[in-house]
């Protein structure tokens, strides 16, 4: 009995030491919290908490801090944007990187129905640390076939890295994606490029749960300076 107690105490002490020794994200070497300026929420109540294996987890709580390598900064602000539909139904293509993230009317650009993309030219190839996207957040919506790709090739023919793809039925024809569908909120959707070096960011969508149109309030790309 005595031996068992000593053994259990020993295990507990070891576990405790390990727990304290394991660095918390904030303490990860060379990382710092990414400071984000979020727009005000536009709707409450929906969505409800969801904890399904096949859908993005919804907890109803704030996303929490995002940690990125020191020196990471916003590199997409006011950078040139092109789109598959250069004549938007509402708004202007430039809204995508104008720094305005409010959910009200007048801050989003609406592109035509079906599969469409926008492309941000960061003007230099650099290690990308975070991509934040707000499609539309004045109402709970799910955008279909969200695919995020990065490349140094402006035509996305070679050297394309797919960061995210939730086109689970390949209806956009970019390959079946295993990522999960998610509901748009004021927090935007965070995509992790894991330091992939690229100059261009291309974002696809294929309508949404409300209608066939494609919307963007803002796209923010964070990167560390190229060495």
């Amino acid at each position, binding site marked *: 009995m005595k031996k068992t107690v000593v053994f259990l105490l020993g295990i507990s002490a070891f576990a405790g030491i390990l727990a304290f020794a394991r660095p918390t994200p904030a303490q990860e070497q060379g990382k710092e919290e990414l400071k984000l300026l979020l727009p005000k929420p536009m709707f409450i109540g*929906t969505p409800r908490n*969801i904890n399904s294996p096949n859908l993005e987890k919804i907890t109803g709580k704030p996303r929490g801090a995002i940690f990125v390598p020191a020196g990471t900064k916003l590199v997409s602000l006011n950078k040139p944007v092109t789109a598959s539909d250069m004549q938007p139904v509402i708004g202007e293509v430039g809204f995508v990187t104008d720094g305005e993230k409010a959910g009200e009317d007048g801050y989003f650009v609406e592109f035509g129905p079906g599969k469409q993309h926008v492309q941000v030219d960061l003007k230099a190839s650099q290690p990308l640390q975070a991509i934040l996207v707000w499609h539309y957040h004045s109402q*709970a919506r799910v955008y279909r076939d969200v695919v995020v790709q990065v490349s140094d090739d402006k035509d996305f023919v070679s050297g394309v890295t797919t960061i995210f793809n939730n086109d689970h*039925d390949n209806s956009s024809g970019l390959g*079946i994606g295993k990522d999960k569908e998610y509901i748009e909120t004021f927090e935007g959707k965070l995509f992790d490029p894991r330091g992939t070096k690229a100059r261009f960011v291309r974002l696809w969508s294929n309508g949404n749960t409300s209608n066939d149109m494609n919307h963007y309030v803002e796209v923010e790309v964070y990167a560390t300076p190229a060495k």
Partner: protein
Amino acid sequence: MNKKAFAGLFLLIVIGAAAFRLIDLGLRPMHHDEANQALKCGALLERGEYRYDKADHHGPSLYYLSLPFARVLEAGTLAALDEKTLRLVPACFGLGAIFLLLLLVPIIGKERVVWSALGLSVSPVMVYFSRFYIQETLLLFFLAGFIAALWRYHLNPSWGWAAAAGMFAGMMYATKETSVIAFGSIAAALLLTRLMTTKAREKKGTRWAHLFVGVACAVFVSLVLFTSFFQNPRGFFDSILSFRIYFVRAGETGFHVHPWSYYLQTLAFSKPGTGPVWSEALILILAVVGIAASFKLRPDKPERLFLIFVSFYAAISTGAYSLIPYKTPWNVLPFYLGFVLLAGNGATALLRASKSRAVRAAFCLLLAAGFLHLAAQARSAALVYPADPRNPYVYAQTSPGFLQLVQRVEDLAAIHPDRKKMFIKVIAGPYETWPLPWYLRRFGRVGYWTSIDEAGRPGAAAVIITDTEQAGRLESLLNSSFQSEYYELRPNVFLVLHVRGDLWDEYLKSRTGKVNER
């Protein structure tokens, strides 16, 4: 206005009204209220089953009057019914309400009838809800008939008009419980009109035998329908007991509670979101002119009494509907009929105000432009924004995106070995379930539960449809072999479709020939 000109104009108005009401009736996804009514109609059509439910669904007239349409269009079962067949019922009654205005020609004259008919035919709210499978347009039709028959009786007291008024009144009652608001408003308006015009009271006395015939017809018609043709005697008593339920509901707090100004504000000026401006101000302004003109008419003018009555009716019924906290946009129709009739008087009064031909021509052009603007809005409401929240009459409407869910389930059934007998579980609260039963009516094995606790494990279900609350509770029962997708039921309300992995893989194969892996 001579007979030929009147006939030509009226015909043109009817053709326009028919186009607005009949084109592309299947365009809008079924509203959950429409789906509810459709299933009740289906039960009556298939099995002859109907029992009045005092707590919900309103009166029986909609279902019984849908039967001839279903039979003519050879839809003998619920599965064979479709949106177009069902919506043809209110569309025809909406059109019928315009025809009923012809009964007013001897009372107010051809010119006022033409302008009123034009207003009724192009009013966006009238057009929009004439394409909606609920009771409101039928109530409008029977109300128009009741008012017309009542005044035709007043002009020429006879058994026929007394019986007609009674029949229309009975049908109003058998259509919707809110008919009592119209009855109350009509009674109060009649009383006020008589108080103002004592001469009329001296001239015409009440004929009790005619009154008895009218009341007997009203009671008989409603008795026949509420008792399901005497199969359910309790139905008629339940229709009376239902007032307690609806009275309580009228004062309840919740989603349908709106400020007193909701109806008038929606009609006068709306601009939801990034959508266009919607306004029926023309009708409202013409109605105000019409009220003023009614009271200014010489006492010896035969139309004066009727127009004063309609002025009182419009004011009282609008006040009554506005004071009730529970509001839905389709409730506009019964009181707006008064505005449309008064607008007809207003337009006529404006055109008669000047003797100068040039001024009259200018007024005529202005009115034509105004009514064209209304017609353009009616077209937008019915055909461009039929399910878009930027249309002020779109209310708790099923999103067009919901039809993608229906299409997905249809596609999955097409490759499932059991086809339409594929087992589908729907686990959702009542507000998230409708209109699924309508859209899944052709599937043989669909089970409905309100919670995971009742529904149990997925079992043999190939497809599970849940609301987001139940989706969140599914994790312990569902594994990652199910593919899940979101679909919008209504703005800010989602359903989640879960498809069993093996069926999903087959589905992908059927789409592309092979499963594409990244």
